[in-house]
């Protein structure tokens, strides 16, 4: 193993003390003199024409400084995707029609909250309600109310199709014909919230120099700048988005959110700072929930369990606009094909408009739903064939070096080893068999064990596609890192400082980081697409390397030594064969300035993935590469099911993972625990309940997210990480998203193992579980599989 001082160690978080002591400034804590309170008026209707908006009374209310509606805006649309195939489709303020409850109608800025609230109540809007539709399968029917015309390139006679992804390889029909067993099943999932603790919040100040300064709780400042500039009609130079501490996002704070636009527009109107902070209810009602997906999956296998072909039909309810719907139907395909060999596949995904809320990506963006469908069915097939679920997976798992249909290589893919190791650690096969036998005994509490797996991409190409970094040596020999990366709670600032400390031989505490300011820091890929440690990390590494090179060159000259003979450690440089010839970093910096006509020492680094890949993959056809590093996981859950109450309890989740090199192992374990908890919420308790387009449980009391006291026991197994320790310690893979899937799937499969009840819909409500147990007790003929 390399002699590493900082990288690969569980260095405490840089932002730990300031957050734990409550002194970190989140957006809500940022205040400016003369700051106003902004509020948003929202549609109470799921679908309506706006006949008129009268803001005159609100404008006249004393204390109100600005009121805005679409009439004040440039009416420029925006969208999570904005491409020739999927042009932007959403106005930041509704123009003539609203398509979901909570859609933004108007904004007010006033001297205090009460005045702002009162002003909202004085705005008169006349609506003509229209027929609405909330179920995506109903919305596809030719007679459904039309929310938007179907995409012009979709030829099927369906309504409300926002987008379609279609791809295939091999001869699926032939594969099914040759299969020993073909199963077709359908799986549903709920609408989920991200559950970030910090609600959406924005402070915008359009100052008299004509610059819009924006502090906002986000996942990356450069994307916000691009979208604000576009919709407000401002040049990039007039929009500055600055860092604040962020209290979690989980995918739910990418893209432009309308309060960001509205706060900006209000401030542009009155030249005063305007702050909008969402209530938790508004987060549920107006920010974006995650993407639900219905997955119909048909799989044909040989007698020994080898997968021969698959046909998958996915339906996404994208809500009233595209949001990330047209992306999730593309990603779902990828999550179907990456971990296991599928020799022939036909995939179709539809993104369907409904009068529900617009959605955002959520940790895993489709993976938990696709893996839930695929691997629930794996276990069903394995059961029918009398094969152990672990065996079934090992028979089909991809091998290192496999080339995927999109041209990606899975390279040194560790999934096989993950499956083997997790099965061994949990004594899976014996316990799985034992639980099956015990199912029939009289015990009221049934125990079971289940497995689930995933493969996940990292650092894919999406705006702004790359990260740059600057590393600057100060004249006291300390180091400053400038990066556009925004720490959303995952600890990226700590990780990036570890890399600088490692490369430059300075104590990690002495690395100063200046992050996430569109004006002063270099561009960054953003805290999504699971690429920050990989993409930004490697940019930072290159910047630090370059700075080191310059520093050593100056030192070599000063010491009269060969650069190759120099060793740098703890801010000192010495000649290896004559250790008393030394110079401090401060001395070397001074020497560089003195000798090189004033050159201070600055290193720059840039990084993007898939350097030879000019294009983004096609959302429509799936052509194009995805990633250059696939992580993989296998997770095993142990559950208890109370057959009297239908309540499922997760006893333990064991994770075996191949995450490349863990730059900070404690942070990796934190990611796993966080995702196990998120998976627990997904499979057991969380659900946004909607009636006529209106959320009826918009609070953390009624939206049942697991709390710290509900956390299950976890255990981890590092799989191929060891190999990376030798010289590949910047080869990191994704750790921030994939583990949710394995948790969801392993619990669902464990529930079957315990009870014989197959979960086809998440979450597993106790009442549904009881009903299913009752049906088992009074069995009726139900066979969907056919055998040839």
């Amino acid at each position, binding site marked *: 193993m390399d002699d590493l001082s900082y990288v690969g160690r569980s260095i405490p978080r840089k932002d730990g003390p300031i957050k734990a002591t409550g002194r970190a400034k989140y957006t809500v804590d940022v205040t400016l003199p003369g700051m106003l309170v902004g509020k948003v008026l929202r549609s109470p209707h799921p679908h309506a024409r706006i006949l008129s908006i009268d803001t005159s009374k609100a404008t006249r209310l004393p204390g109100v400084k600005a009121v805005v509606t679409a009439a004040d805006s440039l009416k420029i649309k925006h969208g999570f995707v904005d491409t020739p195939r999927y042009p932007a489709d959403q106005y930041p303020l509704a123009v003539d029609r609203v398509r979901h409850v909570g859609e933004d109608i108007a904004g007010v800025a006033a001297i205090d*909250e009460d005045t702002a609230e009162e002003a909202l109540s004085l705005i008169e809007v006349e609506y003509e309600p229209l027929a609405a539709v909330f179920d995506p399968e109903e919305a596809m029917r030719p007679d459904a109310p039309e929310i938007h015309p179907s995409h012009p390139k979709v030829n099927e006679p369906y309504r409300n199709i926002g987008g379609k992804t279609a791809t295939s390889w091999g001869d699926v029909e032939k594969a099914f014909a040759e299969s020993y067993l073909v199963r077709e099943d359908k799986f549903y999932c709920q609408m989920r919230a991200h559950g970030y603790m910090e609600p959406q919040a924005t402070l915008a100040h359009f100052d008299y120099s004509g610059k819009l300064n924006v502090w906002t709780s986000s996942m990356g400042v450069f994307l916000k700048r691009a979208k604000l500039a576009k919709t407000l009609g401002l040049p990039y130079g007039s929009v500055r988005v600055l860092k604040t501490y962020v209290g979690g996002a989980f995918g739910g704070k990418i893209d432009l959110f309308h309060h960001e636009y509205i706060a900006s527009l209000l401030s542009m109107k009155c030249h005063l700072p305007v702050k909008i902070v969402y209530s938790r209810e508004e987060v549920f009602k107006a920010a974006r929930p995650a993407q639900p997906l219905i997955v119909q999956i048909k799989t044909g296998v040989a007698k020994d369990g080898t997968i021969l072909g698959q046909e998958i039909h996915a339906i996404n309810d994208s809500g009233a606009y595209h949001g990330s719907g047209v992306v999730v139907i593309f990603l779902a395909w990828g999550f179907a094909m990456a971990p296991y060999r599928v020799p022939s596949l036909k995939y179709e995904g539809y993104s369907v408009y409904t009068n529900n809320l617009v959605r955002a990506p959520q940790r895993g963006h489709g993976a938990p739903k696709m893996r839930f469908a695929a691997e629930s069915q794996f276990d069903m097939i394995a059961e029918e064939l009398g094969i152990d679920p672990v065996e079934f997976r090992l028979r089909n798992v991809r091998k290192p070096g496999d080339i995927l249909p999109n041209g990606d290589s899975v390279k040194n893919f560790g999934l096989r080893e993950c499956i083997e190791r997790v099965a061994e650690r949990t004594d899976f096969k014996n316990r799985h068999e034992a639980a099956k036998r015990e199912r029939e005994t009289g015990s009221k509490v049934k125990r079971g064990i289940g497995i689930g797996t995933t493969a996940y991409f990292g650092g894919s190409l999406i705006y702004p596609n790359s990260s740059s970094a600057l590393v600057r040596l100060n004249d006291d020999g300390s180091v400053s890192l400038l990066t556009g990366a925004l720490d959303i709670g995952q600890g990226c600032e700590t990780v990036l400082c570890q890399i600088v400390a490692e490369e430059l031989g300075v104590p990690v505490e002495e690395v100063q980081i200046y992050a996430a300011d569109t004006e002063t820091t270099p561009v960054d890929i953003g805290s999504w697409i699971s690429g920050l440690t990989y993409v930004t990390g490697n940019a930072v590494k290159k910047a630090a390397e370059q700075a080191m090179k310059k520093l050593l060159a100056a030192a070599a000259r000063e010491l009269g030594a060969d650069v190759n003979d120099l060793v740098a450690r703890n801010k000192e440089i010495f000649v290896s064969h004559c250790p008393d010839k030394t110079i401090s970093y401060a001395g070397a910096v001074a020497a560089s300035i003195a000798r090189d006509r004033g050159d201070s020492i600055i290193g720059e680094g840039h990084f993007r993935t898939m350097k030879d890949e000019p294009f983004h993959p096609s959302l429509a056809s799936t052509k194009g590469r995805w990633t250059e590093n696939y992580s993989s996981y296998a997770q095993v859950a142990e559950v208890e099911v109370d057959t009297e109450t239908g309540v499922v309890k997760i006893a333990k989740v064991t994770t075996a993972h191949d995450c490349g090199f863990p730059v900070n192992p404690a942070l990796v374990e934190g990611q796993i625990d966080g995702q196990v908890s998120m998976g627990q919420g997904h499979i057991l308790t969380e659900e946004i309940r909607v009636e006529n387009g209106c959320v009826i449980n*918009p609070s953390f009391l009624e939206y049942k997210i697991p709390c710290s006291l509900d956390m299950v026991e976890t255990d981890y197994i590092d799989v191929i990480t060891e190999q990376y320790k030798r010289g590949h310690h910047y080869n990191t893979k994704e750790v921030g998203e994939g583990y949710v899937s394995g948790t969801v799937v392993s619990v669902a499969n464990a529930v079957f193992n315990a009870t014989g009840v197959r979960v086809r819909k998440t979450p597993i409500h106790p*009442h549904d579980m009881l009903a299913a147990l009752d049906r088992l007790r009074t069995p009726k003929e139900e066979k969907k599989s056919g055998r040839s």
Partner: protein
Amino acid sequence: MRLPHFDLRQPSTVEEALSLMEEFRGSALALAGGTDLIPLMRYRLEVPSTLVSLQKVDCLKGISLQDGRVFIGAMTPLADLVSSSIISDNFPALLQAARAVGAPPILNLATVGGNICQNSRCLYYNQSRTWRLERPACFKAGGNVCHAVPKGNKCFSVYSGDLAPALVALDAVAAVEKRGRSRSVSIEELFSGNGLHPIALGKEELVTGVAILLPEKSSNSSYMKMRARPSIDYPLVSAAACATRGGNGKIEKIRLVLGAVGPSPVVVGDVGRFFEGKTLDEVDFDALSEIIGKGARMVDNLTFPGSYRKAMLSVIAEKAVRAALRPGAGKEKQ
């Protein structure tokens, strides 16, 4: 969400508190720990013009044992109940109920009086004003529809306090006072049975404490609660049981109370025939389950469907009875 405007009064004696309650009769509410009331005020479901805080009335805090009777002051924090050996030695049901309230931070603030006097709950009622304004007001909010039961003609909100069912099972009595007059009311009688105003107290009245007789040696009690998340939630259904055994080990009497059924805790009547003179093994729980919750109208206004909650009543009741009759049971230590 901001609080509406109110005047805060902070008396330091019971007399002062009672005079204030009388002075502002109808427009004042007592403020104990505030964990129930403050959220309701944020939602504008309560807009009292005066809050009479009992925080400084020290004599309302504490647990004492005198003459075979335990007295618990209304302002005793639930955290104190949970750590009291008088409670754990004598009233396992009350200890278990207190422990099951909300989550640890809530126990530190919440009081016994406030817990008993909390309002009933409903998914369509416990919502912000903005949320409620998007639909007509329901009965409980002063309107004339019910969103949980569209054709219903009354309110089906659910009293979700954890302590009351346990206290009813233990035959506890509340000390109720208004200026110049005090009365003792069984906890059971504190409830009106009306979802609109579940607590049968006069507007100027306060609960000053709860008294419970020490149990007979051979008796034991238990409280069982079902909730969506073990970490924090209100009960979806609950049951408290208090059982006494004779010298021969056979059951002498039992009191079984259901919680989160409707607007008040429900005493399961006429259970003697299932238990008296029997050992635990002889109890026919299937027959018992036939009568449990009979007549209760449980609707879809909490996390889980009413039908499921109703089905769970007998399951949870059986668990409570079994726990109260567990061999060797009687004392519950922390």
